[in-house]
């Protein structure tokens, strides 16, 4: 069962997004700010991170940068889920290594479709990583 880390400072978003994903059969964990997001990404090694851009302590772009610059987390696919929709923001996120950019508000079906796609895509490479992980262990 794939594990998804939902990063959002908004309690309600965490709730509905989390519930939606759980109902769809995913394992969900949460982070409420940027620092926690980076910590959890390292600790629980999620299969996918849903990342908000406007976050306390450390904003989404910095989180993305931190994740992608750390070998331990750089392979984790990141989907941005933000209320920001400026062209600049999208470009910046994509070039920083984000898998997808979802603009709030988003319907449940669109969200699930994007998540599924990302996991499927990553799945092929994921196995390799898991193998490597196993070898190390």
């Amino acid at each position, binding site marked *: 069962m794939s594990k998804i880390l939902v990063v959002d400072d*908004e309690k*309600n*978003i965490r*709730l*509905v*997004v989390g*519930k*939606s994903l759980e*109902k769809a059969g995913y394992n969900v964990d949460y982070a409420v700010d940027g620092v926690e997001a980076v910590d959890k990404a390292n600790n629980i090694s999620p299969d996918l991170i849903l990342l908000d851009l406007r976050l306390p302590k450390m904003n989404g772009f910095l989180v993305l940068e931190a994740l992608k610059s750390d070998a331990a987390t750089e392979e984790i696919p990141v989907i941005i889920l933000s*209320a*920001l*929709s*400026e*062209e600049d923001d999208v470009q910046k996120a994509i070039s920083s290594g984000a898998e997808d950019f979802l*603009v*709030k*508000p*988003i*319907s*449940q*079906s669109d*969200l699930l479709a994007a998540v599924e796609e990302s996991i499927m895509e990553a799945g092929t490479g994921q196995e390799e990583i898991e193998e490597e992980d196993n070898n190390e262990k």
Partner: protein
Amino acid sequence: MKIKIKTLKGKMLLGFAVMILILAGVVGWSIYNFESLSNAINDILVENYRSIKASDSMVESIERQDSALLLLLRTSEEQGQEIFRRNEKEFYTWLARAEDNITIDGEGAILEKINEKYFNFVSKFDQFYNADENQRWEIYNQELLPLFNEIKTDIRELRELNRQAMVEAQGDANSRANQAIIYTIGLALLVTAFSLIFAFYLTKQILRPIKELEKGIKEVAARNFQRKVEVASEDEIGVLADEFNEMISKLKEYEKINVKKLLMEKEKSEAVVNNLSSPLIVTDKDHKIVLINETAKELFSLREDVLGTHFLEVIKAEEIFEYIKNPEAKEEKTFLLKKNDKKRHYRISTKQVIDEDEEYQFTVTLLEDITRLKEIDNMKSEFVSTVSHEFRTPLTSMNMGLNMVINEDTGELNEEQKELLEAAYEDVERLTELVNDLLDLSKIESGKIEMEFDKVDVNDIIEKTLNPFHKQAEEKEIELKFKQSEDNIFAYADPSKISWVISNLVGNALRYADEGKIEVDAEIKGRRVLVSVADNGPGIPKEYQSKIFEKFVRAGSDKEEKSGTGLGLAIAKEIITAHNGRIWVDSEEGEGSTFSFYIPRYGYQEENNE
């Protein structure tokens, strides 16, 4: 002239009267001269002639008496005495006549002498008559003959005297006649000269005030009201001059008031213009600067004397000049100009001022500094954007939460619950749409959305845009028709934005119409492409037609389920404006509406900003 003659008529009559008087004087004097001359001649002739006649008669008488004496000497007694006595009587008659007619000095003395000698002669005759023959000879020879000769000599002297007097008188008459001629000529000359002088004087006297008046009128015609006409005379011209002066002073007063008013107006408008915080330039029909205020000078950093120079000569802003040059059909335009090294936005507006005779034609150009407005507008966009963003997060949880509940992921719902939640979900979707539209609009307004212009097949775009609407139209039993009356229509546009506009217009038409038809068409109109969406729906009331392109303006009676966000047409307008095009609506209430827009035709985009 002691008597003051006041009228021009009087003056002229006086002039004529004086002339006639002088003429009469000359004529009278001439008549008098001729008269006296003729009298003089008469006198001479009558008097002296008489004396001469008397003298001649006396000589004749005395010669007869002498003959009588000789008769007596030859014995003819009777006959001799009778002749003597008769002639004696005759002699005395003529002598008496001569004595009555003494006119010359010395004539009296001669006559007295003759009288005395003749008395002697007659006395001697008595002596002679009484004497005998011998004595008679003696007396005759001794006494009578010498006496006779003496008397004759005296008479001749008298005659000579008179003859001489006659000659003298003739000479005198001649000289008097000559004198009269000379005097008459002289007088005539004098009178002529005097008449000329008088006529000249009179004419001048009459004309001088007229000349004065003429000068005055010329001065007034040259708008000089300072000079008064000085006419001393009290005749008609004097009255005229007085009236004229009165008129001048009134004119002067009037002019003074007018000039004062004009000056006041001028100062007022100059004060207004100069204190105007917006740059203002007035140009004439040759685009020469007629008026420019301080703010404008500051903006274009101009020196003092730019009046009368061509606009482009001093203001190097061709864009603005182009705008001023074409006064017709203007759309609002803003320019970015540097002022004190800071870029500021100016909205330009021009006004044509044409006088009645179309003699002059001014263009008043006002540049309104709208930088602050722009800033506020940007702040507003920023604000709208922020607020919209802030809406998005709660909308997400609402949307997804409701969706999950409705999908019964969290347990079954009864029909009533489901219906209520679906209503809430529908409104969340509407709110989402509104937020998205608002963001789109603020992005376009702030220029954050880049237009991707390209060669675009307009028919193709319309066709593709209409595709998703056909089903909806069928359901509402509305005929959605693309006329496609022209082929190969290519525009210079951003295809996705134009598609969005068409989609919005068709969506609106479908939303407001219950039945009937919607016709979409595209045509080439010169340098532009015209796209129109016509429906025969309820139409738009006149008062809304100009407003519906503003934000949140909806026309007429929206039915609940038909409400849009109220931003669609505002966005459409922004998109079309960004294409340098124009969008408008023609509508008749109850008859339907036609929304039209034009965008530049491909290949003509360079010249589209006319």
